[in-house]
């Protein structure tokens, strides 16, 4: 008797947890910058006061660096200002090599390993952040343009499911905060819509540049959930969904956030 009741209750709970929150209408989407304080906005508005440019300059140097590798990025890709223009705006993209989507960091490591015969960079390493910031900058101002590629569809759907799934001891989904409660205040911090168009970005709280996955990990630990490891396929699927969710929004890389 009791066990049947318990199971029924559990089923109701899991159905409720799966309830899909309403997506934000396209014309109501707003950049995280709109929710940030003046200090972040001023820093982002001026490249000379945006600390992320320290990483960008380092990325520029790494791009052309030949010592220790077979060939530099520039040996194959020439001038990033032309060859990398618009690239980050359409990532994650489908990788033939991996038979699944990869994000920009994933593609950089594919080139490291298969083209440069070099060790992959760790996900949050200074080098990886520098290169992805430098490549990302080449798309700044361009609309986020996730590829219309049917092979990405199942992964994007998985990302959407992850976005809507309740997790952690506090039992929140990303959507609970970023679709249903954006603009409200959690403690005293305004909840942004959770768009991914500024990454990697400089976060004042980190005192550093950080990847989108680092941001995910922050949100996950906030709700007391276990986060996936850096580079995990689940994160890439979530990134894919967020790119679709932010489609058309201008790339802000490298942005500044509180």
């Amino acid at each position, binding site marked *: 008797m009791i*066990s049947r009741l318990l199971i029924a*209750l559990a089923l109701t709970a899991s159905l*409720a947890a799966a309830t899909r929150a309403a997506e934000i209408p396209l014309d109501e989407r707003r950049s995280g910058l709109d929710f940030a304080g003046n200090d972040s906005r001023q820093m982002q508005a001026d490249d000379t006061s945006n600390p992320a440019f320290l990483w960008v300059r380092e990325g520029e140097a790494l791009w052309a660096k030949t010592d220790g590798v077979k060939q530099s990025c520039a040996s194959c890709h020439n001038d990033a200002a032309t060859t990398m223009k618009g690239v980050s705006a359409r990532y994650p993209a489908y990788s033939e090599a991996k038979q699944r989507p990869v994000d920009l960091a994933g593609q950089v490591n594919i080139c490291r390993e298969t083209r440069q015969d070099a060790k992959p960079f760790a996900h949050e390493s200074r080098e990886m952040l520098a290169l992805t910031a430098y490549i990302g900058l080449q798309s700044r101002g361009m609309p986020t343009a996730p590829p219309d590629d049917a092979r990405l569809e199942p992964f994007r759907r998985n990302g959407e499911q992850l976005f809507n799934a*309740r*997790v952690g001891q*506090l*039992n*929140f989904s990303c959507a609970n905060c970023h679709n249903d409660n954006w603009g409200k*205040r959690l*403690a005293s911090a305004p909840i942004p819509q959770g768009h991914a168009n500024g990454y990697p970005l400089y976060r004042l709280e980190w005192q550093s540049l950080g990847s989108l996955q680092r941001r995910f990990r922050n949100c996950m630990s906030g709700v007391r959930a276990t986060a996936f490891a850096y580079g995990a396929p689940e994160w890439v699927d979530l990134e894919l969904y967020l790119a679709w969710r932010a489609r058309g929004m201008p790339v802000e890389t490298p942005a500044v956030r509180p």
Partner: protein
Amino acid sequence: MAKVTTFAAACGCAAAFFLSPAGAQSLVPYVIDGDAIPQSLTGKPGDPVNGRKIVATRQIGLCMLCHSGPFPEERFQGDLSPSLAGAGSRWNQGQLRLRIVDAGKLNPDTIMPAYYRIDGLNQVAQQFRGKPVLTAEQIEDVVAFLGTLRE
């Protein structure tokens, strides 16, 4: 009319085990009557002074992430949900208890975390697995304190 539901999460019987594989800690069983849990989880009334501390301190109760309330010393208050001011006039102790223990029983879509529940959760971080957000004693302290918030 009141529906009485026995809720013995993690009592050690097969069904409860199935529902909470983590099952590290057992919760005090409680009975839901209508929209309330009439009986104290500890069998005793809670301590309202400690309850205030739990509610007003963002790190323990987390209440101020979402709620505001009559706590002039707490600068960071949320606005995701109703102010707690007057909660003790709106609800009796049993009703408050169910709302803290598991608000999802009343509104499955609520974002208010269940403070005394360990089953049906996913991907809970290691250090919180099998543990409710607050202990039975803390729940009673919070309930006692909310009861003093009268309008």
